[in-house]
């Protein structure tokens, strides 16, 4: 039992990071029913943008958020406005395939510019831990991830609840025609929504960059994590996103404790597959 405390704590904290990785994709799915297969790659794009600022200007990765987040908003806005909106329709495949194409472009563009080497955004937090008694330590960086993750979800929640744009996004996802009749330009709204989703992805990208190493092809791996969170937590639900993140991370870390670190991802996927098989709509999904 003693041995399990540490992975359980880590899993809880990591869950917050997973939630912020997934929240943008979950949001977009909730609004446009769009599954953004490039979500992971766009997030990694955020990591690289931060890396550029860190290495050129010597900023602390935290400060790069100030630049990366707005830049990613515009990336999202244009991706939705100029690419995805144009193929949005009755059929599900075209937007999927466009996003898929975008994912390939991003991966190879990053590869071209940054080489396949593993990178990371080093901070002095990386190795710090706070002893909590017994053999359990609080990894400071994970803790920061968790706090920021929760903060992002809270801010997003407040944004959707209290602002005109946020409410309009929810209205459009509830009833598109109803929203248009209110004078809402829904296509524009979708672009805003994607911009906001990409702002969360930017935060996720910087946090992932500080916590783990990344390279141009890491995107899909996080896409699957985002999927896992989305499916376990229920589609399009924000609270579910946090719970889903924690469940997935706990499954991975506790599983790794028993089966060995090589199986960490594998066990996460197995849990995901079981959830998919038993409740395709997710644990918290209504449908």
């Amino acid at each position, binding site marked *: 039992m003693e041995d399990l405390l540490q992975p359980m704590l880590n899993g809880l904290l990591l869950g917050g990071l997973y939630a912020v990785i997934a929240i943008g994709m979950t949001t977009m799915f909730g609004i446009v029913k769009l599954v953004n297969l490039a979500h992971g790659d766009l997030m990694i794009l955020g990591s690289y943008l931060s890396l550029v600022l860190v290495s050129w200007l010597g900023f602390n990765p935290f400060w790069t958020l100030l630049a990366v987040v707005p830049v990613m908003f515009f990336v999202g806005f244009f991706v939705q406005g100029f*690419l995805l909106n144009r193929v949005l329709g009755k059929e599900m495949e075209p937007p999927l395939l466009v996003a898929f194409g975008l994912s390939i472009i991003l991966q190879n563009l990053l590869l071209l510019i940054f080489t396949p080497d593993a990178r990371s955004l080093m901070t002095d937090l990386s190795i710090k831990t706070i002893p909590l008694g017994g053999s359990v330590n609080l990894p400071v960086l994970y803790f920061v991830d968790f706090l920021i993750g929760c903060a992002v979800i809270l801010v997003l929640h407040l944004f959707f609840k209290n602002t005109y744009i946020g409410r309009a996004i929810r209205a459009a996802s509830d009833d598109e025609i109803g929203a248009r009749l209110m004078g809402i330009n829904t296509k524009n709204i979708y672009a805003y929504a994607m911009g906001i989703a990409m702002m969360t992805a930017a935060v996720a990208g910087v946090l992932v960059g500080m916590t783990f190493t990344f390279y141009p092809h890491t995107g899909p791996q996080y896409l699957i994590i985002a*999927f896992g969170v989305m499916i376990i937590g229920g589609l399009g639900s924000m609270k579910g996103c946090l719970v889903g993140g924690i469940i997935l991370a706990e499954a991975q870390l506790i599983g790794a404790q028993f089966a060995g670190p090589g199986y960490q*991802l594998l066990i996460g996927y197995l849990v995901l597959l079981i959830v998919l098989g038993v409740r395709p709509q997710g644990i918290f999904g209504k449908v």
Partner: protein
Amino acid sequence: MNKTLKYRWHILGLIFVTLSTVPIWGSDYVLFFCLLFFLYASMAQMWNLLVGYSGLLSLGQQAFVGFGGYTMAVLTNYYGVYVWLSVLIGGLFSVLLALFMSLFIFRMKGIFFGIGTWVFAEILLLWFSNWKYVKYGTGLFVKPATPPSMSTIYYAALIMGVGTLITVFVILRSKIGLGLMAMRDDEEVSEAMGVEIFRSKLFCFLVAALITGTTAGVLYVFQIFIQPYKAFAIDWTIVLVFIVVIGGIGTIEGPIVGAFIYVLLSQWLAEYGHVSLLILGIIAITIMLVAPKGIMGTLQEKTGFTILPSRRT
């Protein structure tokens, strides 16, 4: 127009004769080119059968590529099974895998089906790269007792390419194919007209697993070396998506045209490394935006041109 139709079988025959004599007249470059073309066309035909006709958005074809390839390699290396026999057994094992997968993923629809297949492939990737029996992630060299000659491999690829084409053609001309085309147009209505949706889809899924697994076996006999990070990589599905989207989803000719373009481009662009994938990505997106039906789809809409008619008159 009528003229091309009239001489269709002559032209097809001529092409077939040309292709089947490549080892005699062709250079190594032509041989490799055609060989890759057959294999990619075969796998793309199968992805097209799934997505373009059955509405099964599989993102996990690499599961069958890797499973078929590894089965072949293990049987050949560890048990000394005759190499072409182990290729076939690899295909059959892929069917078993598909059957097992279907227990989980056939409850899912659309993109969730896609994610389900993908997750399966990722699990296989992780499993094989952690599995001592297949030498972890370092991979296996395929070492048959008597290595087949390059022209033998060429003919195996030719059989896969042509065989797949005939299989798809036969399926589409059969009762199931009629149902598939109806499903593609309107699933609900087709079900209310007596089409057995579940059975047709499962059938296609299993056929696709069989052929993809077998084709992968031939491919790895050619490539000699198999490794989990390559064999189970999502890149396979990416390539198949490109081929089918560029060529024209939901047409028999599309995957052929797409495979030809893909192999040609990837050969040309090979020296530029990753730029080639980048360019392919841009081409695919452009085609989705400009001509969502792909080359053959757009052509057929405008001219009604088909090489192999699946129409009934």
